[in-house]
């Protein structure tokens, strides 16, 4: 049909002829030189199988993955395999996993023989109490799908979920020729059934079929498809958790609400006015990751862009570690080499070493979709129904790459605005209009050691005998006080990420020429000379924002000292811990604030010096 230079995707995901008219046409086309091709993919492996993930990520983020290799690329993106392993190691792991899957499937089959038979069920097979249901439409045997009654809760729960899986499987991507085959439908049913058995906490929730369906098309082997799905679910499963009063995805929806409130207050206000402040209209986008808003091929393209941008080289080892251990190492520091192996989004985020689920890229993708429709929503939406209508209209009309690109921009904007808002609200002590309280109950005190004493010790060495601010000692000092932010819970994570990024930017510059950049201000001077200072990625910019961030902390210390009754209600940040707790984690024992006073007394003049210098060279006013 469409033969305009780029390849036709119809060959890869054929649509049933009778459905052509109703199915949105894919916009994604593999493009030579941009899309990761089979040839480039193969060339990215060393002889024994090590994968140059950095190179591959760069490609994917630019133009996606060619359909012929999507399956094997996704296995890496989702963390099924470590790029830093050999062919042999991976084969072994694959074999091991296939066996594991067979064992689980056999357990399921033992209880419900239809599993693995190429058929599926859509009607209840047991009652809520575990008694077999007699189905007279089954002619063989006794009209029963299970041979005995069950009494253990786990088995009953699982069997009750099976008909729902069946009902959804027969309605999954039926426009694709692939699912005309009963065998393929049964494969989808089997995988979801085994998953529900293994992850009995989440079990099966409508929408998981939409996530699983592509895996089965992309990976021929059923066990491989299962593991790919299982790894995708590691990112998504919290969204599917449900209780009588809420669903997990609402956590992401509140993050979304916070993001829009900060980057586009007008839109947020409008949505609140039409009773959409909960952002429930974005529910489906997050649950099934835009499967319903994009054509099949475009959704896959969006997913791989997203996963590439979110890629973290530690993902494999995080997943492979036993639960108890992975908690401790949840935030391993990444060195520069590893940072390069992060996706664009993750790189910004990971510098903090903080790994919060809520600010997944998906949230910013929704934000970017909303922003794209911002004018229409503001102008035309008089009610929630209009908002839904406007968002319905995007089906098949959005460009996945553009959405991702905008999402990254919004993320950056969010970081800088968030930070601004926090700084100004704290320094004025006015009640913040940012309601960050939803994260308050989640904060945990994680700091160890005596921060203030360590900082006090370090501040002694920040200046050279001639009075020049020294680059590394200054950055080191910043790093020492940075963990204080941890006490504000995940809401501070973006800010912390931002600071971490600024520190490492300056650090890298220093390392590129240690003798020239021994003095902090030399970095700025050299950038001014080469006219790079005003760029948003400059070290000058980094220093400015780092100093502002430190202003915040310094302000915080002054505040603590000035208000012995300092408490959550006193300070704008509702999420802050109470004074006593806070004091104890920064290392102040009892009421002995002398160290803190000393530190505070020296820290703010130092920051002031930075500001004066930046102002003297006309750089105290840069936008982020």
């Amino acid at each position, binding site marked *: 049909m469409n033969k305009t230079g780029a390849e036709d995707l119809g060959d890869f995901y054929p649509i049933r002829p009778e459905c052509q008219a109703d199915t949105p046409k894919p916009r994604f086309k593999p493009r030579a030189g941009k899309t990761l091709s089979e040839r480039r993919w193969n060339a990215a492996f060393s002889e024994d199988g090590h994968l140059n993930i950095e190179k591959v990520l760069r490609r994917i983020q630019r133009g996606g993955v060619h359909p012929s290799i999507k399956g094997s690329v996704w296995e890496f993106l989702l963390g099924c395999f470590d790029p830093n392993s050999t062919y042999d190691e991976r084969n072994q792991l694959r074999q091991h996993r296939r066996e594991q899957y067979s064992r689980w499937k056999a357990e399921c089959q033992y209880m419900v023989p239809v599993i693995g038979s190429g058929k599926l069920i859509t*009607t209840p097979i047991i009652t809520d109490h575990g008694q077999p249901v007699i189905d007279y439409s089954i002619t063989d045997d006794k009209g029963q799908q299970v041979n005995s009654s069950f009494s253990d809760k786990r088995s009953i729960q699982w069997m009750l979920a099976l008909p*729902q899986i069946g009902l959804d499987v027969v*309605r999954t991507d039926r426009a694709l020729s692939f699912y005309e085959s009963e065998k393929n439908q049964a494969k989808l049913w089997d995988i979801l059934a085994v998953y529900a058995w293994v992850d009995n906490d989440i079990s099966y929730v409508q929408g998981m079929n939409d996530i699983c369906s592509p895996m089965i098309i992309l990976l021929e082997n059923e066990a491989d498809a299962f593991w790919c799905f299982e790894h995708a679910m590691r990112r998504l499963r919290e969204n599917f958790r449900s209780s009588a009063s809420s669903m997990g995805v609402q956590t992401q929806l509140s993050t979304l609400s916070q993001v829009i409130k900060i980057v586009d207050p007008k839109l947020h206000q409008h949505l609140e006015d039409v009773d959409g402040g909960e952002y429930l209209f974005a*529910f*489906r986008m997050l649950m099934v990751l835009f499967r319903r808003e994009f054509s099949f091929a475009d959704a896959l393209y969006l997913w791989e862009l997203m996963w590439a941008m979110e890629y973290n080289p530690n993902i494999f080892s995080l997943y492979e570690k036993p639960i108890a251990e992975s908690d401790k190492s949840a935030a391993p520091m990444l060195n520069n080499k590893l940072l390069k192996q992060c996706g664009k989004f993750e790189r910004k985020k990971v510098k903090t070493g903080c790994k919060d689920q809520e600010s997944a890229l998906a949230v910013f993708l929704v934000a970017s979709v909303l922003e794209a429709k911002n004018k229409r929503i503001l102008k035309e939406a008089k009610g929630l*129904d209009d908002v839904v209508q406007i968002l319905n209209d995007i089906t098949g009309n959005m460009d996945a790459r553009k959405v991702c690109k905008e999402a990254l921009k919004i993320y950056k904007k969010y970081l800088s605005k968030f930070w601004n808002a926090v700084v100004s609200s704290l320094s004025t002590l006015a009640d913040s209009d940012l309601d960050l309280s939803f994260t308050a109950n989640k904060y945990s005190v994680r700091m160890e050691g005596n921060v203030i004493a360590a900082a006090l010790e370090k501040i002694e060495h920040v200046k050279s005998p001639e009075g020049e601010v020294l680059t590394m000692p200054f950055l080191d000092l910043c790093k020492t006080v940075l963990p204080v932010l941890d006490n504000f819970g995940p809401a501070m994570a973006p800010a912390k990420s931002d600071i971490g990024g600024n520190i490492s930017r300056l650090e890298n510059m220093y390392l590129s020429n240690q003798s020239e950049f021994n003095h902090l201000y030399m970095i700025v001077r050299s950038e001014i000379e080469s006219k790079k200072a005003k760029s948003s990625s400059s070290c000058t910019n980094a220093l400015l924002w780092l100093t502002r961030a430190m202003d915040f902390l310094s302000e915080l210390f002054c505040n603590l000292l000035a208000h012995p009754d300092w408490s959550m209600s006193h300070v704008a940040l509702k999420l802050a811990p109470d004074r006593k707790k806070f004091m104890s984690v920064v290392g102040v024992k009892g009421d002995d604030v002398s160290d803190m006073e000393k530190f505070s007394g020296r820290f703010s003049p130092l920051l002031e010096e930075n500001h004066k210098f930046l102002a003297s060279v006309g750089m105290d006013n840069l936008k982020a």
Partner: protein
Amino acid sequence: MARRPDEEYDYLFKVVLIGDSGVGKSNLLSRFTRNEFCLESKSTIGVEFATRTLQVEGRTVKAQIWDTAGQERYRAITSAYYRGALGALLVYDVTKPTTFENVSRWLKELRDHADSNIVIMLIGNKTDLKHLRAVATEDAQTYAEKEGLAFIETSALEATNVEKAFQTILSEIYRIISKKSLSSEEPAPASIKDGKTIVVGGPEPNTKKACCTSS
């Protein structure tokens, strides 16, 4: 606020579609709003919606229908949409007894989360599957009478009684609304008259509702 000409209507009625997964809610809706039956229909994630403007008792009514996901796991989300609904279509599948048995659970849901004066209609769908019928019309009829529900059997596939089902519930809503606005005792909580356009929202004094004539 001036509605676009094609948007003009006398009443806006919000109706929810509920019932077990797979009974055909989404197809009843597409049959009613677009006269389509989709063989490749997908399960509903959360809540979806569609509208159709039609004549009811000589008035132009915009029916705003919210179609909910059937799986129990979604109840926390779907029940949020009951608020302000004037009608509920409670659907079961005539070939699946369990979907009929669950009707009482759904009624309880409505009692817990919807407005107490909501109009409820019980719908037995998929009558075209004659050879598979497992719920007798009489049983459902009896049940509906006992619970004070309107009742009808439909086939979204063959377009049997779909129009009639929606017409009936919308007329019933209209009757209740107009009765209310006539009796001077009670202020008609569910209707706001505004020139040519009468918009009906929930009885809760929520001024932020979709239908309010602000801006």
